[in-house]
C-alpha cells in the first residue's frame, strides 16, 4: 500500500505517494530529482547521503521516505542562499577539500551540523565528528582545513 508523504525540501513543499520501502535518499534522488545527495554504500558507513532533517544530520539511506513525512529537509542543493555559497562550501573550495566530489555533499552537511554544535572545534573534534563520512581522495587533511576555514569565517560573520 502506498502512503502519501508531504515534506519541505530546501523550502519547497513536496508531496507524493510512495511505497513504504522507498528510502528517503531514493525519494530525494529519483522522485524529487535532487541528485546532489549520493549513495556510496549500503550499510550506513560512508555518509555520502547525509542530509539535514529538521536541522539534524541524518543518513538518508537509513530512513524510509514515509518516516520523513512532515519533515523539513535540507540537501546540499539548498545550502547556498541567493547564489551565495555557505561558508562551509566556500571553505571546501578555498582549501581544496574535495577531489572527485562524490563524498562532498555529505561531508559539507556533516560539517554544517558539527559547526552548529561546536562552533570552534579542535582538529581532534573535527576528525571525530567526521566519523560517519568517508572520503577516499583527500586523506581528510584538506577537509579538516576546510572546516577550520569555515569555522573562522562563520565566527567572523556573527
Amino acid at each position: 500500500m502506498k502512503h502519501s508523504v508531504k515534506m519541505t525540501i530546501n523550502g519547497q513543499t513536496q508531496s507524493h505517494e510512495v511505497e513504504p520501502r522507498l528510502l528517503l535518499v531514493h525519494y530525494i534522488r529519483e522522485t524529487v530529482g535532487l541528485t546532489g545527495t549520493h549513495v556510496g554504500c549500503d550499510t550506513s558507513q560512508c555518509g555520502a547521503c547525509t542530509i539535514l532533517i529538521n536541522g539534524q544530520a541524518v543518513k538518508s539511506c537509513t530512513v524510509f521516505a514515509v518516516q520523513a513525512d512532515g519533515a523539513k529537509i535540507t540537501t546540499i542543493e539548498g545550502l547556498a542562499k541567493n547564489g551565495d555559497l555557505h561558508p562551509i562550501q566556500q571553505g571546501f573550495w578555498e582549501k581544496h577539500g574535495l577531489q572527485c566530489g562524490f563524498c562532498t555533499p555529505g561531508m559539507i552537511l556533516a560539517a554544517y551540523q558539527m559547526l552548529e554544535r561546536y562552533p570552534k572545534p579542535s582538529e581532534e573534534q573535527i576528525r571525530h565528528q567526521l566519523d560517519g563520512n568517508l572520503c577516499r581522495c583527500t586523506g581528510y587533511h584538506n577537509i579538516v582545513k576546510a572546516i577550520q576555514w569555515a569555522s573562522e569565517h562563520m565566527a567572523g560573520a556573527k
Partner: protein
Amino acid sequence: MATATDTRLLGKSIKRREDPRFITGRGSYTDDLKLPGMTYAAFVRSPHAHAKIGKIDLTQAKAHPGVVAIFTGKDLTGVNSLPCGWLLPELKVPPHPPLAVDTARYVGDPVAVVIAETQDAALDAAEKVKVDWNVRPAVTATAKAAEKGASQIHEVAPANVAFKWQIGDAAAVDAAFKTAAVTVKKHIVNQRLVANAMEPRACVARFDAATGDLTLWVTSQNPHVHRLLMTAFVLGIPEHKVRVIAPDVGGGFGSKIFLYNEETVCSWATRQIKRPIRWTSTRREAFQTDAHGRDHVTDAELALSRDGKILGLRVKTIANLGAYLSTFAPAVPTYLYGTLLNGVYEMGAIHCDVTGVFTNTTPVDAYRGAGRPEAAYLVERMIEVAAVALKMDVAEIRKKNFIPKFEHGYQTKVALTYDSGNYAAAFDKLLGMLDYRKIREEQAAARKQGKLIGVGFSTYIEACSIAPSKVVGSLGAQAGLYESGIVRVHPTGKITVFTGSHSHGQGHETTFSQLVADELGVPMEDVEIVHGDTGAIAFGMGTYGSRSASVGGTAIHMSIHKIKEKGKKIAAHLLEASPGDMEYVNGQFQVKGFPGKAVPFGQVALTAYVPHNYPEGLEPGLEETSFYDPSNFCFPFGAHACVVEVDRDTGHVKLLRYVAVDDVGNVINPMIVDGMVHGGIAQGVGQALWEGAVYEDDGQLVTGTMMDYALPKADMLPMYETERTVTPTPVNPLGIKGAGETGTIAATPAVVNAVVDALRPLGVDHIETMPLTPERVWKTIKAAKAGR
C-alpha cells in the same frame, strides 16, 4: 592564492574550477542520469566461489510484475569473452564470458541479468531466479592455488598457473649471494585490497533503434578504451556507432580502468529491448566485483657487503590474479613490479621470478600504484631488515646505497632507464623536516619510560606517465599508450581543449586550463576543457599510471605549439612581416623584439575564421590535434617518514607524524598535487594498518561491506607534513613526472617500518603480513617476549 591575471599560471595554487558544481550538489554522475523509458538492471550472481551452473529456472522471475527481460549467459549469442589487454609470453587466457555460462568461478560472478521497469522490481525478480548450483571445491589462498590437489579453475591453465615470468640476472644474483658478507631473507605478504572509490560503478546504456547508435554512460577512467574493447573485441558492433561518455566520476584508483561484465551486458541488452538500461552497483556488489589490488606472497633475499652495500636481491613472488584475467592484470605483477625492484639504490644484481595464479576470488588488477607499491614495499622492508642485521642506522644504509644524482638516464638492473634523479637530496630534506637526530633522542627517552615509539622511512621510485607505445607493445600491451589533445580556438579567441585524459578527481579542468592559459597568455576563464566523451574527443587512452599531466598535458602543449606556429603565419601576413621573424609574447604575436608591432591573439583567431586578408595557401581555422607518445616512462621519486606509537597492551598503532618529500618534476598546481599526495598517503596507511580483503577457504568474502573492510576515517589519520624537491624530467617538454600514486607507494612501507622500529627493543625485525592490525601487533609483541 594567485589570480588568473598573474603572468605565469604554472606553479600556482589556483582554486579548482570544477568545485562550484560539486560543492552545490550539481555534479553529474552516471547514476544521476534518468532517461525517458529507462529500465533498471539487477544481476543474479553466484553465491558460491566455484560451482557448475545447472538448470536456471526463470519462470517465477519472468512472471514478476514489471519485468521487461531476463537474459542468461546462453542468451548472449555472438558475444565474445571479455578481453585481456596485456599478453605475456605463454600466458594462459581462459574465456571470460560477461555472464557465466557453465561455471561460476567467484562469489559475485554474474550468471543472469534481470531488466525491469523499476529498480525494486528488478531486485525482487532477481531473487526469484532459481539456479541449480553444483558446488565444487574452491581455492582462494594465493600460496595454495598452484599446490597439488587444488581445485582446477580453468581447463586452459593446469595447476591454476596463468604465467611464469622472470626478469634480471639469476646467475649474477647467485654469485652475489656467494660473496656477500651478510644475507637476509624474509617472507612478505602484500595483502589484497579493494579500491573503494566512493562512487560505485554504474552504467546507462541506450540504443537508438532508428539510427543504430549506442550510447553508454559509464564510470570509466578511459572511455575510449572502454569503447574499443567493447566494440572490437566483445560485442562486434561498429566502433563509430558507439559513443561512450564518462561524466563526473567519483574516484577510480584503477578500479574504473577495466571493461567489466555489467556495462558489456547492458550495452548488449539495450540493443535487444530497445530501451535504455541503468545499472548501479551496490557497495556489496562493488566489494565482490570491482577488480581488487595487490595480493602477493613473496620470499625476498638481500645480499650485502659488510659495509652495507647492496650486492644482490632475489625475489620469488606468487601473484593472485583472481578467477579471470581482468583487462590489464598480467602487467601489474610483472612489468609494473619486477622492473621497479631496483628502487633508488645501486644494486649489484637483481633477479625476480613471478608466478601468476588463478583462484576462486574476484579478479585482481591495477589498484593505485599497481605493482610499484608492491616493489617499493619489498625493497624498503628488506633494506630495514638488512640495517638491523648490519647494526646500521636505517637512514645511513639508505644514504650508502642511493644512486648518485643524474640528469639524463640511469640504467637499472631490471630493464628500465630512469629519467633523472636526485634521491639523496629528497632524503636529506626529509631528515631535516623530521629533525631526525632529535626524534631519535626523543625515541630513546620514550623507550626508557616503556613507550614503544617507532620511526620508519621509505624511499620510492615510480615508473609512471605510462608510456611509450613501442616499449609497452614489446612487453605485451595490446594498446598504444599515447594521449591526444585537441586545441580549438574559436573565432572570438575563446578556447576549447579536448583531451583523452579523464578526470575523476584529479582536477584536469583546472590544471589543463591553467597550462593552456599560461602558454597562450589568455585568461583561464577563456579556456574550456572537455574530457570523457568519445563523441567529442579524437581518441584517448585515459587516466591511470599518473599519466594525465605528463602525457595528456604534453599532447595539449604540442597542439598549442602548432597553434602558435600557424598564428605566426597569420600575424606575419597582417603585419607584412616574415613568419620567421615572429614571436608569441604576452598574448600577442609580435615581430621579435618589437612589442609595438603586434597582433593580439584574439585578432589572429578571428582572422583565421574570417580569412579575408589571409596568407596564400594557408587553411582557415585555428584548431590543432596532437598525439603524444613519450620516449620513456617518467620516474617520480621521494622519501617519506612516519612516527608511530604502539600501545603495548592492545597492539594499537597511533600515527604521531607523517612527513613526505616528493619529487614529481615540475608542478602545474601545487595545491592539487599536495591533495593527491595526501590522499595517496591515506590509502598507503590504510594498507599498512587496516585494509585487507579476507576470504574464507570456501571463497566467501568476509570483508564484503564497509562495516567489515576498514577504510581510513578522519580520526585515524594525522595532518601530513609535505614538501617537494624539483627534478624536472627530460622526457617531456613540460618537465612533469606524475603525481597520482606517489603517496600510496611510499606510505605503506614507511608505516610498517615505523611499527617494526617501535618493536625493535623487543627483538622484532619484521612482521610478515599486512595489515598490522592490533591483534597482529599484539601477537608479535607477545611472541617476541616469549622468545626472549
